[in-house]
């Protein structure tokens, strides 16, 4: 539409310019021809003949619609003939020509000459018809431009509406996928770029949903197929223990049962990590959660255990820090960090649980810290520390904490500390200034 308007404007400018040039040419020719004829009359017939001819011609309108104007006048201002009231601002002695405004307001093209010392002649043609023609031309062009704009607006609006409807189909499918609902780009889209985008989106969503279903199905199957035989084994151990004499040593069988529970716990942690990693960027299931209240509750839950271990658990929690999250996952994240700290901090040590607006969650202790060579690996699966570790841990707690943070568009990092370990959980954007170890 813009191209059409620019083209139209250029065409208008060229047309107006050409019309004005032709109009002026025609006026000049008309005036000069008439003037030459009157000069001939004066030369051949003298002043009286010229006066008669000027009187005859005054008031006539040429075939081209231009009114003829004349003034035959003595230099002292005595009018001899003509249809112009007063002499315009043209010098007859210099034979001046040009557009002038007459005393009645009419704009004319005129040529003034001095025929004799006591006789001046002005011949002019009105340009009014040319001005009207130019106005008509301008109106036609303006109307054409307005029609182009209106047609462009209507077509654009229709196109935008059609585009919006087509894009909305894709957006609705993506929103449904985001919210965890069954979805698909079902409408039939024309085979253009938007159609291709819809097709690609639909296939991507379908593939992602299929992967999520498969992942979930596989996780359930793995859990079921491993737990079921372990459950049978556990029941057999219970039966065997029941058959033992009262004074028999139950410890070995009981340790077997504990091992079974340990394997089950490890399996659950691995599946929890996989489930959280598989839901990075997935906003479904997230709800408003008071992180401050949750951290306070957990702090109170762990306070006794810290006390018994001779450790001070200090809570520094800013109130009403609200996040979008899954409550149980954040319980798990905070618990894992506190479990980790309680495992490594010796008697007399201190653990701090900190919550700040942001949101920022920190667990800091003054224990032995983490060896420099282990720091980059601390969030890896099955990574256990070398100090204070009783071997019971599978080294999955921090890996799960990391997966939970990522599932909530956050990141957990182990930051530099003068003493002990200092874990910080906060949104990705807040890590831009302080890189974790």
């Amino acid at each position, binding site marked *: 539409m813009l191209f059409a308007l620019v083209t139209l404007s250029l065409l208008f400018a060229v047309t107006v310019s050409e019309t004005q040039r032709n109009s002026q040419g025609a006026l000049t020719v008309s005036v000069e021809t008439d003037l030459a004829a009157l000069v001939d009359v004066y030369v051949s017939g003298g002043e009286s003949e010229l006066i008669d001819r000027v009187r005859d011609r005054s008031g006539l309108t040429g075939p081209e619609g231009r009114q003829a104007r004349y003034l035959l006048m003595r230099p002292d201002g005595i009018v001899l003939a003509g249809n112009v009231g007063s002499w315009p601002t043209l010098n007859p002695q210099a034979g001046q020509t040009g557009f002038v405004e007459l005393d009645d307001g009419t704009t004319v093209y005129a040529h003034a000459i001095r025929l004799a010392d006591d006789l001046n002649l002005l011949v002019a043609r009105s340009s009014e018809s040319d001005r009207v023609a130019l106005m008509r031309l301008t109106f036609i062009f303006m109307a054409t431009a307005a029609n182009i704009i209106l047609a462009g607006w209507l077509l654009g609006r229709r196109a935008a509406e059609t585009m919006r409807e087509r894009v909305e189909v894709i957006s609705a499918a993506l929103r449904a996928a985001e919210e965890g609902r069954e979805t698909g780009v079902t409408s039939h889209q024309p085979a253009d770029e938007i159609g291709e985008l819809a097709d690609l989106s639909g296939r991507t969503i379908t593939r992602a949903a299929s992967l999520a279903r498969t992942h979930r199905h596989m996780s359930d199957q793995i859990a079921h197929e491993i737990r079921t035989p372990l459950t049978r084994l556990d*029941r057999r151990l*219970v039966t065997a223990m029941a058959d033992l004499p009262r004074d028999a040593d139950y410890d070995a069988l009981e340790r077997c049962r504990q091992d079974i529970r340990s394997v089950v716990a490890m399996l659950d942690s691995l599946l*929890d990590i996989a489930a959280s990693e598989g839901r990075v960027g997935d906003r479904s299931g997230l709800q408003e959660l008071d992180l401050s209240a949750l951290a306070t509750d957990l702090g109170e839950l*762990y306070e*006794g255990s810290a006390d*018994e271990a001779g450790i001070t658990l200090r809570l520094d929690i800013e109130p009403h820090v609200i996040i979008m999250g899954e409550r149980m996952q954040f319980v798990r994240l905070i618990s894992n960090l*506190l479990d980790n700290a309680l495992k490594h901090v010796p008697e007399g040590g201190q653990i701090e649980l900190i919550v700040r607006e942001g949101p920022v969650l920190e667990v800091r202790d003054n224990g032995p810290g983490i060896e420099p060579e282990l720091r980059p690996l601390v969030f890896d699966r099955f990574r256990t520390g070398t100090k204070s570790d009783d071997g019971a841990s599978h080294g999955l*707690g921090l890996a799960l904490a990391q997966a939970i943070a990522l599932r909530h568009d956050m990141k957990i990092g182990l930051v530099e500390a003068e003493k002990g370990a200092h874990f910080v959980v906060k949104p990705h954007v807040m890590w831009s200034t302080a890189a974790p170890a």
Partner: protein
Amino acid sequence: MDNGTVSDKGGGGNGDKAQKLALKVLHVEDDADAAADLTMLLAGEGCHIVWVPLGAEGLRRAALEDFDAIVLDRMLPDMNGLDVVKRLRETGIGAPVLMLSALARASNKVEGLEAGVDDYLGKPYEADELLARVRALVRRASGHTHNAIIIHGQFECHVKARTAFRSNKHIPLSPKEFELFRYFMENAGEVVTREMLLRDVWKIDFDPQTNVVDVNIGRLRRKLEQGFDAPALETIWGTGYRLTRGE
């Protein structure tokens, strides 16, 4: 004390040991060995067990007969246990459901509770844990909770005033300790497992590595036993705790 607001959870001086269950239980489980184990366990407690291996059969039996409780597997050959419980609720069958499943991660339990099950226990399970869950389930379903004052032996729990007494002596408790005490009083005489305490008192569906439950129970125990000779809480090894009558 107003009539109807006081309950004695002691059951007329029958001691602290749990009574026989004597319940009619529907068990929906496709694994015959697992079903046999559970039947032996519950039958030993005086229960009558009806076992069916399929979800559809379970729905049919639940519609035809009254059961005190339903123990339901999750991954059944013909349908998902979550769908079974949804269908049960849709058809107005209100028998309490304990889902007993190999899918026992925290997220699985949340899904189960959202689908309408009343309790969720993972396999492998401890026999005492399962019995405690079934007892608590049936008790909750029978509505024996939320009294203004609960009395069990020497213990009194004033629910609205949030105060605790032993032999008419006030026991100062923190808010969370009172919640623990109240939970024991509501389940007086029964085994309360660590998982039940985590779930119902702290709203946590997994077991932290740290011994947080044992320590908090230890603190409550010390307060309940201070100045008394008889123990207040009995530790059931490997399973949980039971409130005594304090006598």
